[in-house]
């Protein structure tokens, strides 16, 4: 059985500083999105319970991916398929979906394709659905749990106020929530062996996709929300409680 986990390379969110309401991305190390790491964990857990499973890590991005992918291979990925092109770093969801779908077609007998429900940086939440459409595969979103039995998957799908249990025939695309699994901490040995695991790299040309495609959606601004302090001064605890109540910060 082949499980593909699509993971997006993003700046390490914990190390981004905000200056003048803009994120400073210079010198920020790259990593994979948090939900993508949970998707990988879900795949590795399936592998541990089912046995004969190969976990593929699929990613499209800039050349730093060659290093970043070691994180996924240390955390249990067996082999990586990377599409590397500088233009992919900030590319739109529709382009990324085409690239990933083309990448998946290069891999044989893929049974299950996992995505995070949204990427750690832009969180547009589109890529999984778009890939399912391009590959004409069924899609289940917001998965908290996946069980595999033969050629079907049973998925617990979490909605705002209810949980659905669905069954889907494989091959299928599933987008997962971070609740599906806490990413494991790899051991030193796993970290050091990651770079030695097999890895295939492709360029856009190899997949028949042209590099110059323009982004249909353009980000006009990306600012941290302004937070104005209210500068309320209180003289005593009683006044503090009153103020907190009037601001609806504690129960009436």
């Amino acid at each position, binding site marked *: 059985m082949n499980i593909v986990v699509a993971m997006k390379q993003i700046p390490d969110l914990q190390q981004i500083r905000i200056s003048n309401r803009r994120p400073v991305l210079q010198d920020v190390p790259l990593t994979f999105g948090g939900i993508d790491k949970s998707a990988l964990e879900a795949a590795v857990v399936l592998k541990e319970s089912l046995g004969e499973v190969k976990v593929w890590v699929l990613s499209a991005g800039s050349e730093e991916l060659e290093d970043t992918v070691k994180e996924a291979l240390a955390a249990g990925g067996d082999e990586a398929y990377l599409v590397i092109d500088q233009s992919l770093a900030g590319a739109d969801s529709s382009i990324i979906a085409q690239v990933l779908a083309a990448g998946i077609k290069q891999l044989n007998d893929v049974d299950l394709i996992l995505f995070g429900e949204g990427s750690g940086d832009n969180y547009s939440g589109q890529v999984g659905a778009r890939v399912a459409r391009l590959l004409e595969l069924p899609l289940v979103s917001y998965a908290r749990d996946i069980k595999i039995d033969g050629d079907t998957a049973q998925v617990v799908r979490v909605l705002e106020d209810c949980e659905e249990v669905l069954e889907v025939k494989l091959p299928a695309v599933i987008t997962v929530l971070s609740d599906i699994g806490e990413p494991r901490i790899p051991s030193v040995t796993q970290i050091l062996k*990651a770079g030695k695991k097999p890895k295939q790299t492709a360029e856009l040309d190899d997949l028949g996709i042209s590099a110059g495609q323009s982004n249909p959606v353009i980000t006009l601004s990306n600012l941290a929300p302004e937070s104005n302090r209210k500068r309320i001064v209180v003289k005593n605890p009683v006044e503090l409680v009153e103020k907190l109540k009037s601001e609806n910060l504690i129960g009436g």
Partner: protein
Amino acid sequence: MDFALSKEQLMIQSMAREYAEKNILPVAQQIERENKIPDEILEGLAELGLFGIAYPEEYGGAGGGYEGYALAMEQISKVCGGVAMTISAHCMTLSTIMAFGTEEQKKKYMTPGCKGEHILSVAFTEPSTGSDPKQLTSTAVKDGDKYIINGTKRFISNANWPGTILVFAVDSETKRPTAFLVDKWCEGYSISEPWDKIGMHGGMLLDVYMKDIVVPAENVLGAPGMGYPILQLGISFGKIGVCSITLGAMLSAYEEALKYAREKMHRDKPIAKFQAVQLRLASIASLYEASRWMTYRLAWLANDVKDPVQFAKEAALTKTFVGEAVIDLMRDAMAVHGSYGLINDYKITQLWRDSIIAPQIEGVTDMQKVIAAAVILGNI
């Protein structure tokens, strides 16, 4: 010259940080209070390969080199000095066996240690001496193809855990210190209650009593009479551990001082706006950076020691600098906190107690200078 950490090194660093923050931080106060590391933590560290990170896989290690070791220890110590100290004393013993052991000894004694099934110790210090090997009083009397060891060892880290203890005793033939691989808890081995020390709680420190312990002659490490050079080189590797632990405390104090300077208000301004506080923060940052790069360089040198004497000099210089820098840094971090720095609710108090240990162990700072000067001057 390239000071950038490799992807693998960055991953080792964040792995140790993540483990420490997720698993050790929630029990750090408990360790501080009870002076005991929960078994799950030791098991978790072992699973991640942190008991044998620097050593080759053929001896059960993870093959991460000494830089990986230093990076991981710094992150663990940032959260709990005592946990890092336990690993440091253990690794000093492993490094010594790695440097002087026969193939058989390395396989036999290092493998369970690297896997974290054993926690190893070095026993040199005695009630009457820590700095001077000539004053060693423990004895090893040769009796056919075995030795009979007697004596008392003081302040021995990890003496309570099962595993190998490297005992230094004066043997009856060479009349010089010799290193013996001894199994803790063998017949004739007993320990005191743990010492109640100022900081690094969780790192166990005990006295060891040796009464007619019988060890086969094949358990001599190196050769009879070679104890002193063995100790010198072993302790030089040990200084990577002590310095990395110290870095963790420095980094934590740096963060605490920054946080406090930003939060504490005077006349509606954070005290970080005062130049006097800024100067202290800059000193803290420079002391940490200098210590960090000296320690990482020592770790890098340790991966391929060409000349043990020069390496001992580098280790002594690094330990001298880091051991003094941490005291200056803590003083500044404490000053930023004002009187709150004396209140035990603030982490800086614990960091202060933990870090005062660095200049006193594995050779006091004065001894480091004596060692370094002797190498620098050569035969005057």
